[in-house]
Each structure stands twice: as C-alpha cells, then as structure tokens.
C-alpha cells in the first residue's frame, strides 16, 4: 500500500507539521510558512489519499469560546510512513517546521 503520490517538498512540510501537533489549516500555515493557497489543496489531496483524516472540533469547545467549530486534521499511519520516506529525501525538513504549537494566549478580562 504505497499510494502513487507526488510527494513534493510542501507536502512533506505539511505532513511534518501534522506530526508536530499542528492540526488546523491556519496553524499549519504558521508552522510551515506556506501560503493558504498551497496548504489547503495539499490537505485536500492528503485527505483524499488517506494520509490524514479530518474531523470537526467538538461543538462544546467552540461554543465556550463563542465561535464556530474548526475542522482539524490528523496524520494516519500511512501518512507517518510517507513522512518517514520523505524525511530521507528532504534533509532540511526537520528544521523547516516549527517545534511545538505556538499558542497565542487567549486573554480574558
């Protein structure tokens, strides 16, 4: 089960970001530095290939913060395998993606 996927450098970056704990589209952009017009088509493609799976955030969480629920993405085992393969190809991958999710601290008065 090795999908014929065109594993580009940006695709590898997105996978890497997913393993590092960035689960939402805009967060992945922040982590990889890729523009939204690149990140989203990659996510759609990886989703279609089964390298990641997506789901909606729990409505309770979103309601508590008074905003609509966000869609989050998680890497699958296939995705992990793919990433390992990619890591061979792109040596700089490790440095290219931010470490831990950078969280802007929500401010509550």
């Amino acid at each position, binding site marked *: 089960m090795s999908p014929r996927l065109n594993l580009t450098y940006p695709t590898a970056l997105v996978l890497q970001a997913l393993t590092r704990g960035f689960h939402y*589209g805009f967060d992945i952009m922040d982590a990889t530095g890729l523009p*939204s017009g690149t*990140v989203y088509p990659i996510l759609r493609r990886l989703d279609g290939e089964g390298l990641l799976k997506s789901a909606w955030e729990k409505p309770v969480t979103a309601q508590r913060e008074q905003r609509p629920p966000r869609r989050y993405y998680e890497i699958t085992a296939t995705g992990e395998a793919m990433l390992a393969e990619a890591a061979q190809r792109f040596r700089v991958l490790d440095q290219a993606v931010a470490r831990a999710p950078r969280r802007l601290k929500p401010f509550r008065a």
Partner: protein
Amino acid sequence: MRPHRDPLALRLCLLLVRLVSVIVPTASREDWRAEWDAEVRWRWDQLAASGALDWRTRMDLFRRAMGALPDAAWLRRQFTADADLVHDLRHGLRMLMKAPTFTLSAVLVLALGIGGTVAIVALLDTLFIRPLPYTDAERIVTVWTRSASRPSERDDVAPADFLDWRSRSQSFSAFAAMVPYSRDFTGGPEPEVLFGSQVSEGFFDAIGVAPAIGRAFLREEHQTGARRVVVISHGLWQTRFAGDPDIVNKTISLDDEPWTIVGVLPRTFAPQLLPRPGELAVWTPRAPQPSDPRIRASRWWNVVARLAPGVTVEQAQREMDAISAVIARENPRTNAGLSALLVPMREHLMGGVSLPLMLMLGAVALVLGIGCANVAALLLARGVERDREFAIRSALGAGRVRLVRQLVAESLMLSIIAAVVGVALGAGALRAIVALAPSGLLRLHDSSIDVRMIAFAAALTALTTIAFGLVPALQFSRRRSDGLRERQASGTRGALRRALVAAEVAIALVLLVGAGLLVRSFARLMSVDPGFRPQGVITAQIFATERHGPPEQSRLFFRAAVERIQALPGVDAAGAVSAMPFAMSNINIRSDLEIVGRPAPAAGEQRGTYVTIATPGYFRAMSIPLGEGRLLATADRETAPLVAVISDALRKREWPDESPVGRRIRISWQGQRVEAEVVGVVSQIRHDGLDIAARSEVFLPHAQLPFGSMTFVARGRGDPRALIDRVRQQIWSIDSRQAIYDAASVERLVAASLARQRFSMTVMSAFAAIALALCAGGIYGIISFTTTQRTHEIGVRMALGADSAAIRRMVLSEGSAIIAAGLAAGLIGALITSRFLRTLLFEISTADPLTLAVVCTLLGAVGLAACYVPARRATRVDPLVALRID
C-alpha cells in the same frame, strides 16, 4: 450567536470566502465554507484577544482568506470534469498578475464607483425604503400653518387654530399637539435642561408609538391638577438611570418637583418635530389651559394627526382648506391668508434631507459612470493588445466559446476583487458621510451596508466588466484569425474608446462645475457680515421663568449674574438677551407694531416686528455697531421711561427717509400694550443664518421688561471652553440649582448654521476630485495606449525627418481633440444640470462665468498634462528599434 456586528475587516474576509464558495462543488460547499469561516474567525479572535490587531495583521488575514480561491479552484477540478473553468480562472489570475498596472487601476476605478454607489444606496435605503418606526406610518401627517404670502414656508400652529381644526375636522382618527417645553433636571451630576414637550391627549395614538417600557398617558392625566407623570426618552433612561429595568413608578426631579415616570419611549422614536430633537427628553401630558382658545397670533405648537380609515391626504387637505377659510373669515385680523398644510410624516422627516441626498446620488451616479467608462476603455485597449494572444490561441484550435469563456472568467476575477475593495471603501464613505452630515439628517446613524447592497455592488461590477470584457472577444472572433497577419487596431474600436474618454471629460466637467459653484457660494456666504463679531464670544442659555419668575426677582437675578460674569478676569463685556442670533432654541417673540402719530394699518396689512429683551451689556459683548442715537443703558431702570432700540431693518422699513430717534412705538408685551420711545438704531443683525436677511427687531431693556428665558453673552480672551466653564460657575454661585442649556462659543453657532452648505460642498468637491483623477487617468491611459500602438508609425515619421516637436504636437493634438469634445459636451450638460443646485446657491448664478472658465481651464490643463507624459515618451522612440518590431 454573536451579540454585536463583526468588525468590517472580518466581514470583508468572510465576504470573500462567501463569494468564492460559489466555485466549490455544491456537495461540499457548506462544509468548505464552515471550515474557512471558522479559521478566519478563530484567527481574528486570537488577534483581538492578544491585542495584535493592526493593519498588518488584518492584511495578513485578508491574504490568507484569498487562499480560499486556489483551494476552491482545486476542489472544483477534483470533483467535476470541468477542468476548463479552473484553467480559465488560473489563466485569468495569471493574466491579471502579469499586468499589475492594468489590474490595479481597473480595480481601483471600479471600487471607487462601487464604494460610492453602495454608500449612497445604503443611505437611500435608510431614508426612503426602511419602514418608519411608527404604526401605519403612511397614515400619519404633520400639520402646519401656511401663509398665502409665503407658501413655501411652514409655520408652527397657534393654540386656538389647533383647537378649531381638531373640533371641526372629520378626516382624522386622532389629532394631537406637542408643545415644546423644556424642564430643568436636577437629578444628575449638575443641573441641566432636558428637552421636553407637553403633549395633548391622544398624541401617542396619533403618532403610533407605544412606550417600550411602561405605558403612555391616561385620559385623566390630561386634566388640570392631575398627578405629575412623565414619559422619558430612551437616551435619558440609559444615561441618567443606567437603563434601570424597574424604572416605572420611580420619580424624577423636574423644575424642582417630583414627577412619576410611567413609561420609556423606544430608542427609534425621533419624530423631528422640535427644532432640535434632544437625546435627553421628557414628555408630559398637557392639560387644556383657559387661555388656549384665545391665542391665535403666536404660533409655537407642533401638530400630528392620523388619517381616518379610507381618507387620503388630498381629501383631508381639502377639508382643512375649507375649515381654514372659515376660520380666516371669523378672525380676519390674525388669520387672513392662513391655512392648514398637511405634510405626510415621511415627507416631513425627509425635510431638508432630500435635496443634498439627491445631489449626492447624482454625483455618485456620475462618478460611477466615469468609472465604468474608464474600465471599459481600459478593457477595450487591453483587448487590442491581446489580439495577438487570441490569434495564437485561435490558430491553435481554441473555439470562439472558449475565448469568450476565458474573458468572462478574467472579468469575473476582476469584479470579485473590485467588489470586495469597493464595499470596504463604501463602508468608509458611509461612515464619513454620517459623521459629516448636518444633525438634521435623521436616522442616518442607523445606516449600514448589508447583504442586499453587497449583492447590488457585485451585480453592478460583474455587469460592467463582463459587458466590456466581452467586446474584444466578440470583435476578435468576428474578424476571425486575421490578427496574426494584420496588426492594425480596429477603427471603430478606436472611435468607441475616444468617445468613452470624451464622455469622461464631460461628466467630470459637470461635477467640477457643481463643486465650483458650491465652493464659490460658500465663500460668499462666509464673507457675509453677520452684524456682530462672533470671535471670542460665548453664550449660555437658561430658562429661569419658574425659578426666578416674579419681575423683581428676575431683575435681581439677571443683574447679579451679568455683574459677576462681567467681573471675571479676562471678560471684556457681558450681557444677556432673550433671542440670541444663531442659537438653536430661541424664544422668538413677535408683536404687531403701532407707530404713535400714524394711522393704524388696515386689517391684514399689519407688519409685525420681533421683540427682544436685552441688558445694556449685550450690544458691547457682541460688538454690534450703533447706527444712530444711543444704546440701551443702565440708566434705563424700572422707574425710568420705557425706551427701545430698533434694528436697521425696521428703520429701513418704517422710517426710510427720516430718523426714528425720538419717535414713540407701541407693541404687545405679555398680553399688554406698552409704549416706548425709540432712542437708537443698531446695524443689521443676521439672526437665523448668514443667507437669511436681517430681521426687523425692537430691543427693550430687561430692567424695564424682565423676562425669564435669557442667554448670557460674554466677550473674553483665551480658551472659550474655559470661559464657558467660568461663566457657568458664576451662574451657579448665585443659584446652584439653575440648569444651564446650550453653552457654546458663538463662532461654533455660526459655523453650525452652515452645516448643510458645508456638507453639500464637501461631498460635491470630494466627488469632483475623484472624477478629475479618474478622468486624468482615463486620458493618460488612452493616449499612452494609442501612442504605443503607433510606435511603428512614429518610428517611420522620425526616420523620414519629423522632429520631436512635431511628434509631440501630433500626440497632443489627438488628446486635445478628445478633451475639447468632452469640454463642449460637458458645458452643455453643466448648464442643464446645475439648475438643480439653484436652491443651494447663495447670491451666485448657476451659469457663473468665472466658475465655468476656471473649471474648464483646470480640466483642460489636467487633461493636457495627462497627454503630455505619453507625448514625451513618443518623442523618445528610437526609429531603429521601432522599425525592427515585426
């Protein structure tokens, strides 16, 4: 879910997502939009919460939202076989990126037009389309007194006329009056004056408003001696009672008496019947007074009526005309030539609004016209440039439909971007207009841009761009693939372009003439001498009729207050007057005038005068020059013989060829005849506006005829606000519970009186400036385009010996032909349309030659300057390079 509206930048991003979502396949559209919405909102919340919202982060968010477009395009390609569309969109985007100047100018031009239109449509929607906040609003009429001699003016209503109209008419289901009556409120941090009205029975039924909290007045509360009850405005409830939900049955202190609050009116209630509708207002029931049926000469009531079912405004007006005629026969002395005038509520609310608004609408339509012409010319020019591209694609097998589709896709992209930018500009413009608008423009602050207007804007742009974007494609496909051989620009298309630019010049001229006339008129108005020097003068108005009612007490109070103000350091002169020029709420007292020793004029031919009470210091504080005789003096005491100073307007009317000093006049004062000797004449004093002629006026000394409603006037040095504060302290040092209403600098009062003119002028000038810029851009675009097209020809000419002056002349002459044609057409247009400005102009003709000349020169010069740049570029053509093309 969200309690208040989202900020504009966020709404724009969401709008973009929403527009783009059309591309996403239907099956996943909802999810797709939910995901993007959530991400954008989440980001916004994060930024807002950490205080990181500035223009940079906003731009970044917008850029991220732009990513929705490739995302949507990608999905479209995945889920349908329609790869062409995606290809078109991508190609379109690439073409737009490749020509950034074109894209930027097209987007900007369209966005300006859309922004203006959206803003004005939002205003029109608020004023004309949204329902009024009254039950069956179209059945409500306001009723005024109309005089046959001044049919265009609406006067307030006399109590006796009101009573007769109400008892004799059949056309109304409710007929009620509202009597302006201010109240001193002492429950707040400092004593203040609340705008108030006493309303007759059935007022709230007539106007169709029920209190938001509590109830309206009961029948028995309109009886003399009933308990004191009051309905308060929403603003008062919010600001002075902190929106207390249990407000009903609490008491409020008005004029030092406790009143019971029975209701709070809704926020939307603004009937605009008072000269200045206060945010802080109280409404009290009015009991009929025994004197009401006798007062016919003084008119100060406002009347509102509700048409009975099935009765039209015209029928009711006919009935009132008949009733008025009978009343005039019964009371020839007061009512000859007077009749009742019915004005539907909406029309009344529009009042002074419609004309400036129509002006703006016209201006915006013209700017939009220029914008469309500009983009059309740009697109046409681009079409010519791309003939070769089309020719190649067509030669490679692209069909006509395919080419057209591609152009439509491109135009669509252009419209989407322009619509988003335009809506942003429109929201900004709307805010600016609302901030600028004179306060008489009601309900404007409720205006907002909503989905309908955005849809309107989107449709407008799509129509423009697609219509003109298609022309090149259709023209090309008509000519088939000749483009590869022939590089000649089509003659008809060139003519169409030139005509478009000439039209731009013409429209710009119309706008510039309008703006020029308004500016000139405003300058004239500013140079009018008001008859006093407003610089350094401040005023503070009080209504002391209740607190210092008895004549002796009134005399003491005002004398002490004026003396204390006068004694303040930095104050040069101080006084008090009953009717302050340019003040918002004056008590204007009119009286008939009798000159001792002259026969009394026949009934209906009496000419009255205004009666104003003043203290001696008033004239010095205002720097009102003395014409002849003397001013009022402190020696004119209670015990001295009664004296009067008259205005120059009255002297010109009654004593055109002789001196009035020493003559005796008789006037009515509070129901009594008083006789006074004229001792002096003061200059013309403009009272209600710089464009309104000075009024005939008799000034009488306060010491001899004490009056309770006076405005203190002080001329001083230094900061007017500090002076106002010190004057207020002096008044409170005598009576700490005296409320002070409307303290202001006189300069501000005079400036405020010009608000409407300033508004019209500013708006018109802004539109004219945009038009001029667009027009210059248009001329530049067309000339540089044709010059580029003619590079080959210019090269040949230069090779054959034409010098650079000849080339420059050639290019400039093409430009000047277009400009001249535009100016000629524009002049005709301006002469026709500027007539609509007539009522806004002050002492200036709508065909003012100076304005026309200046504006034509300006536009011509700007146009030629716009031609000059490409003309110079043409002279630098290197014949060798030019001839080597092809």
